[in-house]
């Protein structure tokens, strides 16, 4: 019963979030300067008839409730509306890009975590967390993602996965290092180490169990970190993913696309938060 009510609460929270994102995005795009303009207006080849049609279209897009109703209606029909920029259903635009972005996220997360875990394992062997280990992570966090991507482009080496992985690794390293350090100092681990239990068994049975719940939370945080870097990385490296689509949509005031991407991002963040929080709730239970 409790599980069901918790599930219902989560669903209600998600629904409220979807509504808020929808209203907020529509409002922001509607109020953005240039929403009612069209690049074709500057094109001297177009006749006055086209201009009149554009003016009529702009007049139809003027009212916020009407815009919301139109977007909600297109979502109910399942095609997420028609892209203003490309003139095709948003669903068609997003589907191939989701695979690209999903692959990028997955590879970045794997590489980022592998880097962070490696560094954290080695760093946690030290008695004190020296500047040698902390400084690179701090430096990487201080460099904006776009600057890091530009540096890679200028240097001609490194790609989108590399940049995102570095960012994820830098952010997760400190958490992982602290977690591991605390885990190694647990009395039962000290006892186990004193008894000479093998390293592999210690890591698999004791350390992993001790930091498992925190790792799940950290995974959620990593996903959020990766999502936040998605737009600059995809735009600068020309990755045909959802981040690049979002940027183009913002530049062209393409509300249906922006709305779809924002909703996807919001749902991904919510889901990662829920997954991250779940193990600790289980543990408490």
């Amino acid at each position, binding site marked *: 019963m409790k599980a069901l009510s918790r599930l219902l609460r989560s669903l209600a929270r998600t629904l409220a979030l979807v509504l808020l994102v929808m209203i907020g995005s529509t409002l922001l795009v509607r109020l*953005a*300067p*240039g*929403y*009612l*303009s*069209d*690049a*074709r*207006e*500057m*094109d*001297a*080849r*177009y*006749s*006055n*008839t*086209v*201009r009149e*049609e554009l003016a009529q279209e702009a007049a139809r897009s003027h009212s916020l409730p009407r815009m919301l109703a139109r977007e909600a209606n297109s979502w109910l029909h399942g095609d997420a509306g028609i892209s203003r920029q*490309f*003139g095709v259903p948003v669903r068609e635009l997003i589907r*191939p*890009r989701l695979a690209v972005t999903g692959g990028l996220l997955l*590879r*970045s997360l*794997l*590489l980022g975590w*592998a*880097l962070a*875990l*490696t*560094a954290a*394992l*080695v760093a*946690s*062997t030290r008695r004190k967390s020296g500047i040698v280990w902390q400084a690179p992570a701090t430096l990487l966090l201080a460099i904006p993602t776009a600057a890091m991507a*530009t540096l890679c*482009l*200028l240097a*001609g080496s*490194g*790609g989108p*996965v*590399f940049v995102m*992985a570095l960012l994820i690794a830098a952010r997760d390293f400190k958490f992982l290092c602290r977690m591991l350090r605390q885990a190694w100092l647990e009395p039962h681990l000290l006892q186990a180490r004193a008894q000479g239990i*093998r*390293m*592999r068994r210690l*890591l698999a049975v004791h350390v992993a169990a001790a930091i498992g719940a925190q790792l799940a939370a950290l995974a959620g945080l990593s996903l959020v970190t990766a999502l936040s870097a998605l737009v600059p990385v995809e*735009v*600068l*490296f*020309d990755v*045909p993913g959802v981040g*690049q*689509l979002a940027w*183009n949509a913002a*530049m062209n005031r393409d509300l249906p696309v922006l709305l779809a991407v924002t909703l996807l991002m919001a749902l991904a963040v919510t889901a990662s938060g829920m997954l991250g929080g779940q193990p600790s709730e289980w543990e408490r239970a």
Partner: protein
Amino acid sequence: MRRGRVLAGFLLAILTAMAAKYCLAQAAMRLPGELAWNIGYDPKTFDPAKVDDIDSETVRYLTGGVLLRFNRLTQKVEPQLAESWNVSPDGKTITFRLRAGLKFSDGSALTSRDAAWSIQRVLLLGDSAPVSAEFVAPDGVHVDAPDARTVIVHLPQRVVEIGKVFDEIAIEPAGRLSEGRVTSGPFYVANYLRSQYVRLRRNPYYELRDADGSVLPRASGVLLDIVENPEEQIRLFLRGDSDVIDRLSPEYYEMLRQRNPGTVRDLGPSLNTEQMWFNQSPASPLPAWEKAWFRNQAFRVAVSQAIHRDDIARVVYLGHATPAYSFISPANTAWYNRNLAPPRTDVAAARAGLLRAGFRLQGAQLVDADGHPVRFSILTNAGNDERLKMATLIQQDLSAVGMQVNVVTLDFPALIERLMHTQDYEACLLGLENVDADPNEMMNIWLSSSPNHQWSPSEKTPATAWEAEIDKEMNLQATSRSDAVRKAAVDRVQQIVADEEPFIYLVYPNVLVAVSTRLEGAQPAVLEPELWWNVEDLHLRGTR
């Protein structure tokens, strides 16, 4: 124990390195004999009749067979699917004779019925087909196909340079819309992966042959990678994954020149112009005194005289631009007015002109007769480094005559809203792309009634005598049958514009391109598409 942890870390490091190698690998795919270059965005449409963006235009150019082709190098119209064509003396009837044995890329026969249908479709689509407007009165055009190889187009009125219009009408199979899959041009669309690439394959039934009878096109296909980022385009070019780059920025041109000197070419001034103008619209919400400055010819001329165009060309374009004083570029040899006498850069003359017009210096600040300090903003679009630098140099130049200038950048939708809707701006710096050398294409910019008459859009009647004269001369060049009369009219408009400075022309950016040393047959031209206008002849070395 510590040794064990270090060992675990070492093993993880090896795994990480392997993962990194896999993650950073990027596969390039190109088929044998295939050409490759980049387009910025997904083509909006593969329907050749509805093309209105540059990327769709590229696909249309490469796939669409046309009755006549405008040779970008000689700037003459040449028969393509038509073996001959003629225009009646009154200019109202055009007769095409098709080549014998023409076929579409699927092997079906191409007859005059297909050609007539394709022309009629463009006319019927009206506003959805931008090319239809070039017939001036598309509703009154009739197309006949009296036999399998003859097409006759009847126009209600003469259209200047009508031959070039047929360069934009792709001949498709009648009644079978294929979105580029069945074509009469050198290639057809074989595969399209949204946001990634468009793959074109050679049309096996393409009838055209070169002078020695070899099959055209020489390349087996074209891979159009969709790459928006210019840095990425450069990287692909340097890696050999792309054969050409058009529209290089001066910075990238110089970078490539240092790395691969043999690959870059500066073709000299383009047909495009960069210009600034003041808002003279009576509907603008600007204060009355600012409107008075901007409508004052002496003010505009003084601004023009204060701007150092040579510095703009040298600093902003690294020497790859030519100072501009007219809307027609010297690259447009047929229409450029060589006797033009515009006000040249002369800061002393600018100061004197302003004094004569009632302005005066109050310390270092220029003020008008009523004491209002001359202070305004120049608007330009964000994300264009050259325009931002030009605006900054102009800001510096105008400070020398006491004007205080702010530079404001806006993204394009916001800029369009200011220019076309609210008219809430003082001055604007933008460029104009001229895809056609004929000044008739610029009618909508110069006619005072046009919404694209940027300094004062959609005037009910010409606001000034000189605008009325421009209207008269532009209408004359659009209707006259005499080339000499047309030239004289366009020369006069150039002189009026140089005297009145409604647009203050700054530079003609040069056409900068990069061509791989592996590519043969390239003959870059100033007119678009600069690099692949002769795509039939292009091929990679050793793959002919």
